[in-house]
């Protein structure tokens, strides 16, 4: 038995070794087993029940492929994205204002807390239905519904962010008579950033769901509308295809865009906890 009394060798691995290890773990991961099991169970269940009701995995993926390749997916995606961009943009603004107010003064917190709680508790369904009833098929319907559904999530995270701004750092800046703009730029904004990102991520996920809901009831295009169409046609494989695409888009945005951004801006932190 060779013994070493220096630092363990494992801490001196090069990056290529670590990449190799990561790849190995990825390939040998149990997740593939899980996917195989899921597909098998699905196939068996589809065979057991009426295949009109439960489509086979192949059928669903074929449909999915068609939708993407024909470009339909991107058309509908764009239509939904426009609505989300406007609606969520407004939600960010409103949520920011409310969050900052609530975080800075207790009085504002008392006034506004219920708006936020109520907003969190209310199902997006109600907002969607009311918006459609009121605005019909115009762009206003999705925009207001998205705004109403997602602003509370942004507000809550911003509020926590404001409350978390270190009074000690602010006091220290005051002692050193640091210029206001510097304080905002180098203390307040960096403090808020992780919370703003967390709020953005959560709010964005909610916005997507809200927009889909509205498109279900009052739209003529968009991913939600496609899902409605599948439902009306009783096309289970169609809906599953669109649902999977929807899920993939969300996962892509979450892991491909938002998470890396959050990690980049939060790299000085030991950990970021998300509110709600």
């Amino acid at each position, binding site marked *: *038995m*060779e*013994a*070493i*009394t220096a630092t*363990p*060798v*494992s801490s001196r691995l090069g990056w290529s070794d670590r990449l190799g290890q990561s790849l190995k773990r990825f390939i040998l991961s149990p997740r593939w087993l899980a996917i195989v099991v899921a597909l098998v169970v699905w196939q068996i269940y589809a065979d057991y029940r009426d295949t009109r009701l439960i489509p086979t995995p192949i059928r669903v993926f074929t449909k999915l492929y068609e939708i993407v390749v024909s470009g339909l997916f991107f058309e509908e995606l764009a239509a939904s994205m426009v609505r989300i961009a406007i609606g969520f943009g407004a939600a960010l603004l409103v949520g920011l204002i409310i969050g900052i107010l609530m975080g800075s003064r207790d009085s504002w917190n008392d006034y506004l807390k219920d708006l936020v709680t109520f907003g969190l508790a209310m199902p997006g369904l109600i907002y969607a239905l009311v918006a459609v009833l009121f605005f019909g098929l115009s762009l206003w319907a999705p925009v207001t519904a998205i705004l109403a559904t997602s602003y509370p999530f942004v507000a809550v995270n911003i509020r926590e962010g404001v409350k978390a701004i270190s009074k000690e750092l602010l006091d220290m800046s005051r002692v050193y008579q640091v210029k206001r703009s510097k304080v905002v730029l180098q203390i307040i904004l960096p403090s808020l950033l992780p919370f703003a990102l967390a709020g953005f991520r959560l709010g964005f996920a909610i916005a997507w769901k809200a927009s889909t809901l509205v498109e279900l009831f009052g739209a003529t295009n968009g991913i939600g509308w496609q899902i409605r169409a599948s439902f009306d046609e009783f096309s289970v494989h169609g809906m599953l295809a669109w649902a999977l695409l929807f899920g993939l888009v969300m996962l892509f945005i979450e892991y491909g865009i938002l998470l890396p951004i959050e990690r980049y801006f939060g790299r000085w932190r030991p950990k970021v906890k998300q509110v709600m």
Partner: protein
Amino acid sequence: MEATAISVRNLVKTYGDPGRELLVLDRISFDVATSSLVTIVGPSGSGKSTLLNVLAGLEPYKSGNVEIYSSAGGSKLGYVFQSSRLLPWLSIEDNLMFVRPQHVDKARHKERTQRYLKMVGLKNVGQKYPHQLSGGMQQRVGIARSLCVEPAVLLMDEPFSHLDELTAEQMRAELLQIWQATQRTIIFITHDLQEAVQLGDRLIMLDYQGHIFEDIKIDLPRPREFTDRAFVDFYADVVRRFHQMQAKRAEELTDSET
């Protein structure tokens, strides 16, 4: 009276994957007599906490033999940790009941908890929750807990290192009184040489290679104060030996680099 409580033979302990192992304890052998108070010192990373964990059965070892002798059906171990390790959602009384050994019935154990809480000066604290007690008091509860299972061996891992010096000093004096009253076999780990010499009737010094560098009997009467010439001389000698060990280590490091 000179029965053996613990017997360790050629204990080898390593960390890491086979082929790339880090040797922490290298063929350690020693016996501990019952009712003795043995202090184990060593620099950080010398494996003293690991040794305790192996004795406690918390960590496996590569080879060798470890035996703890207890009376038939009696509890083997009590352990006092650096942090109190009390269950925060149980009262102090319930925390002590939590460790009731299988072979002791509730009433008898309850009587013991009350007796030992009283012994550490926490008679009325039974219904409080840990967060309501100070650090020193929580450590005392930990000590009471270790006592009330009436173990063959009491293991203590730097139990006073997280306390302020005044409290720690007080706790050391109390520990000696408890030891003399209960006659338990105690293994006490510390990085503080002074604490080790003040408390133990035997001192084991580990070195950086996982060997026993020194095994010294301490025959001095207690309390050991710095006003006592014999104690000062003895302590100075121990410090000297400790520095010898460190010098040897420095030598080896420079040797290996050439």
